[in-house]
């Protein structure tokens, strides 16, 4: 069966969608990704959709779902490299995807993830200290 590869890089998971997404594939990705997040207790997920030319409302919703699920599993999600045409289509469909973090490219996406995870750990440390006192 066709699968989208999920790469692990330290605390982060990288997903690069290189093929045309169809509904089944999106659902498989959702399953695989949630499994993988809990398996390696990933802190961040980066989804690169720069080679995706068509995004329909279902794929858009699935991306939003993946982000929410990752959040529940304590991982930040960032979607990078959305093409102008895709962005326009999604907006025309009335989907602004408010739950999704976006970045222009993989580089700035990783930067965002690092910052987000660092902030998170700082906060954890802070709470950890306060409970010890």
């Amino acid at each position: 069966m066709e699968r989208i590869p999920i790469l692990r890089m330290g605390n982060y998971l990288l997903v690069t969608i290189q093929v045309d997404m169809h509904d089944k594939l999106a659902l498989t990705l959702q399953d695989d990704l949630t499994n993988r997040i809990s398996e390696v207790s990933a802190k961040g997920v980066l989804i690169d959709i720069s080679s995706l030319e068509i995004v329909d409302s279902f794929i858009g919703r699935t991306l939003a779902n993946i982000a929410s699920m990752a959040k529940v599993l304590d991982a930040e999600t960032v979607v990078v490299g959305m093409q102008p045409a895709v962005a326009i289509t999604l907006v025309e469909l009335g989907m602004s995807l408010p739950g999704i973090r976006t970045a222009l490219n993989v580089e700035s996406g990783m930067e965002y993830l690092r910052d987000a995870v660092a902030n998170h750990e700082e906060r954890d440390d802070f709470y950890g200290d306060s409970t010890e006192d």
Partner: protein
Amino acid sequence: MSKLLSAIQQNQESVLNDWVQRLKTATRRRDLIGSRELEVEAAELLSAIVNVPPSTTLEDFNGAGWEPLKEMLANLSISRASLGFTPSETAVFVVSIKPSLFSLARQSAGGNTDEAFEEISVANEFVDKLALFTTDSYIHGRDQVITRQQEEMLELSTPVVTLWDGIVALPLIGTLDSARTQVVMESLLQAIVSTNSRFAIIDITGVPTVDTLVAQHLLKTITAARLMGAECILSGIRPQIAQTIVHLGINLEDVITKSKLSDAFRLALERSGRKVVRMEKTTESSLTNSRGI
């Protein structure tokens, strides 16, 4: 071939001379076209009339034989349109051949008035059709000019400028309609991708009115930019426009708005971790001193 047509063929030179003579008095726009050029065009047109296949008649203007002539006329009209001639001036060019043809028709009919009348009315109708055809072509040519200008204006009116590394700005000028907003949206998003910009400033100082449709388009553009990973700042909102936006009940709460482009630029610089500082005066004076020494 009709009698008149063969008569024209035989007297091509005298008809041309007569026509050119009339053109020189009828064509008032000496500033736009020289008399030599006019003569060449008249000669070409006349030879196109004469050199039709033998079966072609003057009555049958839609016949295949007249196609080269029509093509020539269309090109002529379009070039006249771009030169700045009016439609009637273009038509006069063709119509002024009439008297020459009429006198030729009278001559070829000899003393027979009925035949002369017949020939003249045929020639009259033919030249009228030619004149109408030039007017049609003229309008077509003008339309093309207008369409091209519209496209150029659309391109010109939506320039995306890079303010800094990673910061682009789109100064909007003029009324925004759906077609323009679409171009605006596409060019901004394309510029974000090509310049890899994290921040985009949309400045609407030059936009006279903002209605619900325009606001909706702007919001769509901002949302699309956000989806791509860039942040949009809306600037240059004049007091009247702020009032209109509130009266119309448009929700701009999720959008960063600044009253001036400079404020928006400052914010973009700050958010991208940059700061503008004034150079100290002393450094400047020490520089001049050192140069003086």
